[in-house]
């Protein structure tokens, strides 16, 4: 009897736990309108780790997708003469490549119309083959490893700059900080390793010496051993390729060990969570994010407000990208007037979508065209925007750039005038005057370049607003 009772208790507990796992905030399907129009259900698969150390980022991604789907359904799109209702099928890959392939197969079997995700490069790359074989378009909002789009799969897209661009920007940024030696740590995931390798290339090209290469994993909490080794190399900078759950404690433990090096990381550590976990150790260090900061983008602040209101949570990292990814797929379906993957796939490549995160357009590989990289500084528990490197900002420059150019010309003229004046006054010392003129000219060019950059930023914001 006793045994029976507790078996029942156990199974009740198990059912409870299981139902908790399955309990996701899926959008309540809007009741079908009473009119006689047929309704098409579009199934979108969404994959991210919902369990494990990156579950908080997975939930963030899911929220981005949920928000987009809710808006799409509220808007009521019509495709091929039928009203469409989007339905999100959320899967958990636990950031594990094996699990990623399993859930990808599950989505293929469920005949989804498209896939949003996965979150991690490590799960996205093996899954992309399954989607390609089944002809299902896949748009990731966060997989930044270059390999994802280099496999020749025409179903693979991403709405964010890749790690070649990011690693390059980070390497150049490090060189600009005057760093001479660097220690690189990565978490041996496709993302962390890929980013660290690209950074290494860029850093070495910029003349920085890599004095130590250490490894950890994406579940580790203790980094003192590798940090002690790094300390002995007296590296001036620690570069970390990995996620916030490891990066935060790593920065903190470095400080505890008395390591004086600066800390630099990519998008995986550019999160509020990193600062929460790193505490004081995060202060004054830098990280990068693909794209431009949300508050500088036309639709950014509105999205942030919407997101906070709907989920009562802060955006962690990729939610706006995932949100855009869903819209990219929906818009492609609309243009193709079909929800059939074979028919609307070609339209994704032709995307010109004014998203929250960027002007989205894809190159022939499915990578985001002109992906910009922004640098941030951890200041007072917040991410402070520093600058945007690369990207298509200049390409979209309009009249403001012309104005800026005019400004530069004017400035140059003024400088030249001043220089000749100086020259006239100091005829006896022509050499000095020439030097001064050259100096002044240099400054003017610098100021001009600044002006162009500012104008470009302004233009981009203006274009985004339109």
């Amino acid at each position, binding site marked *: 009897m006793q*045994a029976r009772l507790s078996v029942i208790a156990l199974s009740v507990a198990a059912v409870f736990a299981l139902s*908790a796992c399955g309990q996701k905030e899926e959008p309540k399907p809007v009741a079908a309108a009473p009119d006689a129009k047929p309704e098409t259900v579009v199934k979108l698969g969404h994959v991210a780790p919902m*369990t494990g150390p990156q*579950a908080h980022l997975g939930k963030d991604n899911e929220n981005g997708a949920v928000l987009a789907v809710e808006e799409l359904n509220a808007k009521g799109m019509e495709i091929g003469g039928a009203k469409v209702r989007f339905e999100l099928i959320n899967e958990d890959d636990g950031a594990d490549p094996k699990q990623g392939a399993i859930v990808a197969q599950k989505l293929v079997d469920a005949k989804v119309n498209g896939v949003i995700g996965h979150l991690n490069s490590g799960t996205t790359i093996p899954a992309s083959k399954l989607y390609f074989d089944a002809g299902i378009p896949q748009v990731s909002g966060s997989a930044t490893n270059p390999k994802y789009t280099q496999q020749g799969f025409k179903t693979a897209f991403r709405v964010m700059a890749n790690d070649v661009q990011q690693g390059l920007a980070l390497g150049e940024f490090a060189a600009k900080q005057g760093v001479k030696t660097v220690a690189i740590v990565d978490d041996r995931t496709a993302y962390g390793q890929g980013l660290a390798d690209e950074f290494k290339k860029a850093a070495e090209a910029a003349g920085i010496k890599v004095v130590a290469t*250490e490894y950890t994993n994406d579940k580790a909490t203790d980094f*003192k051993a590798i940090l002690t080794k790094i*300390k002995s190399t007296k590296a001036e900078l620690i570069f970390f390729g990995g996620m916030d759950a490891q990066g935060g404690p790593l920065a903190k433990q470095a400080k505890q060990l008395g390591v004086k090096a600066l800390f630099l990381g990519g998008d995986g550590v550019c999160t509020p*969570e990193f600062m929460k976990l790193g*505490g004081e150790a995060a202060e004054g260090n830098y990280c990068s994010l693909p794209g431009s900061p949300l508050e500088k983008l036309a639709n950014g602040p509105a999205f942030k407000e919407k997101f906070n209101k709907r989920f009562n949570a802060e955006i962690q990292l990729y939610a706006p990208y995932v949100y855009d990814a869903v819209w990219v797929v929906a818009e492609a379906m609309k243009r193709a007037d079909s929800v059939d993957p074979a028919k609307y796939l070609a339209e994704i490549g032709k995307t010109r979508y004014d998203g929250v995160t960027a002007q989205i357009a894809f190159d022939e590989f499915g990578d985001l065209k002109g992906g910009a990289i922004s640098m941030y500084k951890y200041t007072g528990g917040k991410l402070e925007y520093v600058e945007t490197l690369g990207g298509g900002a200049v390409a979209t420059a309009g009249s403001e750039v012309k104005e800026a150019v005019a400004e530069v010309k004017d400035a140059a003229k003024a400088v030249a005038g001043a220089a000749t004046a100086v020259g006239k006054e100091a005829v006896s010392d022509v050499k000095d005057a020439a030097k001064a003129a050259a100096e002044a000219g240099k400054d003017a060019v610098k100021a001009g370049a600044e002006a162009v950059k500012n104008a470009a930023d302004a233009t981009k914001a203006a274009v985004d607003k339109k």
Partner: protein
Amino acid sequence: MDIFLQQIVNGLVQGSIYALVALGYTMVYGIMGLINFAHGEVVMIGTLVTITVAGTLIKAGMPVALAGLAGMMAAVLVCMALGWALERVAYRPLRHAPRLTPLITAIGMSIVLQNLAMMVWGRNYLTFPSFLPNMDFELAGAHFTAIQVIIVLVSAATMGALLLLVYRTKLGMAMRATAQNPAVASLMGVNINRVIAAAFVIGSALGAVAGVMVGAYYEIAHYQMGFMLGLKAFTAAVLGGIGNLAGAMLGGILLGIIEALGAGYIGDLTGGFLGSHYQDIFAFVVLIVVLMFKPSGLFGEKSGDRA
């Protein structure tokens, strides 16, 4: 040399944490031959309860150190109740079942507890309030902090107290008797159910203390933090000879130091062929070698006198 010393300090602290958790495994195993895989989760719940209780008290204006102590007390009480409930609900009904059944149940309970914790505390990482002022010491080039010293002292003191309990008290005698032969012990008037429940309750209280130490050391917590920790601690217990208290302590510290030295020197020793992510290889090679020559672990006895 200072680097070597620093690695030893790193390993000693990490090892003391393993040892504290390993004591919980070894106690339960010693008495009933069950590997309680849910023990790592008990540790995790100890950390999370401390965060909630201490966090609330600090917000209410209580001094930090006092709130920390209150949080720890709450964690110990919650974990004791949890340990008792685990034994009562999941393991007692299976006491006469084949050995594999309670093992699978233990893994099941571990998953249930993880998911419960995820529901209660959410998926995000939680920061552990810092109870201690950030005191730094330096000795011969090795840095260490107050919390590191406390961790080593607490695990040594806990092991001492446990040894006293097992070898100097009536309950301890009952435990040793149960370990040797439950049937005979019960004929001699030992209440087996009470002894086993006591082992779970005490083991879980130790788990809670370990949880507080882990939280205070890394200052982060997460609903899955117990899994890896539990696995490592279990390895430490096996290394030292599972069922033996001193063995668990020694196994934990050995494992910690081997890991730290492995991570620190494996790259140089193999000329860069193996990197620091192979640190676990070091630990497991040592484990395999020890088990080849002493299958029951460093301190393990062949039979009988466990606990």
